[in-house]
């Protein structure tokens, strides 16, 4: 997948508003593979909605969202599942980890279907992110910041053209935030993928190609 294009897209709940001034809503916005974007958003501007639309979670918008010129409204659930395995990876704001599984199992459950990463690689990331002692701890016994790092590792366990990071460092200190940034840039570059990070304030220290205001 090379580009994601949003033409005159607006969430249905905003449709009646005429005070929208945004780089994404009701414009022609393009996200291209290989570049890095920061989407800055204030609360209530529809950041979660945007991620949901681009990930096939929700379809309550007006306008046209297309992947390489193809309207995504026509995709069925199985097609979206294919995209979620091969084209778009996401680090959810609310993480969406499985509380009753261990940290490693949470990563494995993704890697089982994509068979993308070796166990060694996964453990190396745990090490790099400073949570190697938590490999076999249940996720619901870990802090939110630790969970965020596990969710990132899970997001990396697949091929992707676009890597969405929805407030990835909200609960990380600067040191861990920089480690995460290094891994993200390294992996995205290796895959030639775009990095699309959102932020409501604190954001990863990357030299973004473009900053879009929501």
């Amino acid at each position, binding site marked *: 997948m090379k580009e994601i294009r949003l033409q005159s897209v607006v969430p249905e709940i905003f449709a009646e508003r005429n005070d929208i001034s945004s780089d994404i809503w009701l414009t022609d916005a393009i996200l291209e593979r290989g570049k890095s974007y920061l989407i800055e958003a204030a609360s209530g501007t529809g950041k979660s909605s945007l991620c949901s639309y681009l990930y096939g979670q929700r379809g309550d918008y007006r306008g046209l969202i297309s992947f390489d010129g193809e309207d995504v409204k026509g995709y069925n659930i199985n097609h979206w599942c294919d995209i979620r395995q091969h084209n778009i990876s996401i680090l959810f704001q609310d993480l969406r980890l*499985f509380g009753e599984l261990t940290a490693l199992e949470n990563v494995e459950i993704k890697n089982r279907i994509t068979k993308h990463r070796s166990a060694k690689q996964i453990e190396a990331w745990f090490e790099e992110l400073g949570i190697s002692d938590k490999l076999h701890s249940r996720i619901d016994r870990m802090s939110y910041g630790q969970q965020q790092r596990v969710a990132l590792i899970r997001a990396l366990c697949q091929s992707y053209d676009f890597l969405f990071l929805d407030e990835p460092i909200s609960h990380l200190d600067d040191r861990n935030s920089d480690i995460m940034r290094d891994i993200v840039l390294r992996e995205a570059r290796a895959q030639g993928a775009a990095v699309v990070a959102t932020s409501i304030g604190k954001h990863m220290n990357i030299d973004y190609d473009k900053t879009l205001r929501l």
Partner: protein
Amino acid sequence: MRLIWKLLRKHISVFELAVFFVANLIGMAVILAGIQIYSDLSPMLTGEKSLIGNDYMIISRPIERVGGETPKISEEEIEALRGEAFVENLGIFASSKFRVDGGIEFKGKQLSTMMFFESVPNEFIDVDSEEWNYEEGDNIVPIILPRNYLNLYNFGFSQTQGLPNITEEMIKRVEISLRIMGNGHTDYYSGYVVGFSDRLNTILVPMSFMTWANDYYSEDYSGDATRLILEVQNPSAPEVVEYMAEHNFVAEDKPSESNKALFLLQVCVAVIVCIGAVFSLLSIIILTLSIYLLLQKNVTKLENLVLIGYKPSYVAIPYILMTMILNVSIYLISIVLVSYGQGMYMGYIGKLFGVTLEASPATAIVAGLMLTAAITLFNFFIIYRKIAEISRKRC
């Protein structure tokens, strides 16, 4: 799949599944038993392996005046009857056209009476005896009596006269001395009762004896038919009744045992199968609700699995496997129960009719397989639909 199972097995209610299991087991076993009983018993009531007997009717012309000749049935009329669709087989009664005196020795005294004989072709006779044959020159004539006669004696005559009861076996041992006269001949034969008929209300001798004796002892044997025995599917069918009235035949009023028995069997089986079906239906509803509840409790996990790229059909596998294991176990246990029950009732029926019956639960196996496949497919359908619904609505 191990991780998926670890995630999704939570909230599985053993109690709900156990209720489903027991209810469906009862339902399935009852349905299969009903079907198996029907398939075992209906050929005994109809068809060639009939134990109770097919539907037979005996017809003749009505006797309209005193002193006249017995009304005859012509060959054309017989041929016309043979051509009717409802007639599966037809036999002509042959009656003795010679004088028969039968005697038995009782307490040293010779008791003697005038007798008559009739014959029908062997396929119409409901007595299975190796002694039932006669070849020209034999001095021994096998005889079949109506069971009614014996009952008449035992329950009527002997009780009022203070005479002892007699059993069938006793009668079979008694020699009946027969004196047959006609056409200038007088000969003596030994008659032995070889069996008792429930179907034919007359004194029977083998057709081979009758043909020969009529020829030998009768001066003017014509062989005209006066009574016919018909094998029909249903003697009370409208077309049969209509035909008989139209062609001036009267049927001997013999209740059609097999017909009534078959009807009763059908009613019983229908009731059994209905009860089984209600059980099964309720159990399927329990399982469906149970699965819905289970999926509802796991809705966030299912949603998250689909969000990280698992297809709904894959996520459905643990639930489908679970119902499949349940259904197949229920099926296997039902078959074991049915074949055990079948062994019991077939043994009992075999004893009742004095035959050895083969018990094979083949019908139950096939019917159960179809039923299990249908229930399992239905389970697949509702599981898949529910998961797809969750994925669509939430993802």
